């Protein structure tokens, strides 16, 4: 210990303290602060770059998911539209068929009615004709065969029978 103290040089100690203190202060101003600031800045830059890259990646994922969803929706919509169209077509065909059927039935009915009418008309006119004819017959009979009552009656009878049968 005595040797240690004997070796201790006060001047060297003072110089050492002054030099190191000055060096610390100088380096702090001219080296350590700028260096550490730059390193921090750079690290901050790297961190933020990585963060933004991660964000971009997530956004990308979102976009992709969105795209997929939209595509799916579009596909579903197309399917729906196609289905609807198919149904519409079917419906139209069915409708048309129905209508056509109804129309034809109506036409048929009309035709039947017309036929009936015509028939009625024809019957009426035939009846009139028959009446006329019978009148003419009667007339002619009365004109030509009024001579014989017997014959007359026979004829009338005969005619009437015929008429009745025809009617």
């Amino acid at each position, binding site marked *: 210990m005595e040797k240690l103290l004997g070796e*201790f040089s006060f001047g060297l100690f003072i110089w050492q303290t002054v*030099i190191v203190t000055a*060096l*610390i202060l100088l*380096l702090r101003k001219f080296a350590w602060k700028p260096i550490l600031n*730059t390193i921090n800045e750079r690290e901050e830059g790297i961190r933020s770059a990585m963060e933004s890259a991660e964000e971009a990646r997530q956004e990308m994922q979102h976009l992709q998911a969105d795209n997929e969803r939209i595509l799916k929706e579009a596909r579903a919509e197309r399917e729906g539209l196609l289905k609807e169209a198919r149904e519409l077509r079917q419906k139209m065909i069915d409708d048309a068929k129905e209508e056509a059927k109804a129309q034809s039935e109506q036409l048929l009915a009309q035709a039947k009615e017309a036929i009936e009418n015509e028939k009625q008309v024809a019957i009426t006119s035939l009846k009139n004709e028959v009446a006329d004819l019978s009148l003419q017959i009667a007339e002619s009979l009365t004109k030509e065969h009024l001579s014989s009552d017997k014959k007359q009656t026979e004829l009338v009878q005969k005619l009437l029978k015929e008429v009745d049968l025809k009617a």
Partner: protein
Amino acid sequence: MKRIFTALFALLLATIAFANPTVKEKETNGSVKDEIKAYIQHHLKDSHDFYLGSYKEDGKKHYVGYVGLPIIIWDNGLNIFSSSKFEHGKAVVQKGTNYYKLYHGKIYKTDAAGTITYDDAHHPTNEKPLDLSITKSVLTMLLTALLMFFLFRSLARSYSKNGNIAMGIGRFFEPIILYVRDDIAIPNIGQKHHGRYMSFLLTVFFFIWFLNLLGLTPLGINVTGNIAVTFGLALITFLLTNLTANKNYWAHIFWMPGVPVLMKIALIPIELLGVIIKPFSLLIRLYANMQAGHIVLMSLIGLMFIFNNWLGTSLSFALAFAISIIELLVALLQAYIFTMLSALYFGFAVEEHHEEAH
């Protein structure tokens, strides 16, 4: 690796055991040993002048690459002169009415003849003036400080020039700065407070590391193995710890929470002692490690000259080489430990009050 060392040591011991020097060789060996011992002792100390090497010729010592360093003495007035005037302790320097003499690396006030008086333990009793000389260690620290300043300022500047990316030598040092921040400062001090201490931790880390490395060069500069230097460094850690400490830190010293009152009182002196011991361990650890490294390395190099035969010398060389490589690691390790423990003490000082479990 360990096995190789063991084998080398065994061989070395064998050569010592089987060396059978004649009486004459023993004598020369003795003087070489003394010379090496003195040389190591001299090397470990700070020096007032700088030279690359010295040799003896015709009984006279010659110095190679000698550079006189400025001597600054405060002795009721400032005296500045070159250390070459001392002529390695042989000459007395007169300044005004005062005479100064360099004796075993220290400057003493003497009379005109340079008389040094001793006490019983052969310590000089002459008055010592306040010696603020730029010694070899001070010069080395100044140069290291200058180197660090330009090195790290260039790193700071290269960022703005090159879009926040380090250029040149800074590329090597930037990961080390990051390491100090991420693995020394933040784990020990915490994310919130570490910023305050970063300047000290980084400066001290590189300062100690560079000085340790310089100590391994053949220039023979033993700065961090000097107790005054490590004391100065530890003192700054001590002051920073205690000046920035929060209420919680002082509470743990003077009124330890969660223990009985008697215990609290008993713990006060222990904790107060701990406040001193922590930085004291820092200064002793760095000093002792570097000092020991230098002694071991120089002794092994010295062994080469003591053996003076091909086997012993080459073995000593191999060991010295291996120790040099270990010392390279120790240079970094000691810088790391000093920084790490400083950070740990700062961590104690700013630790937030947490749950009672302690």
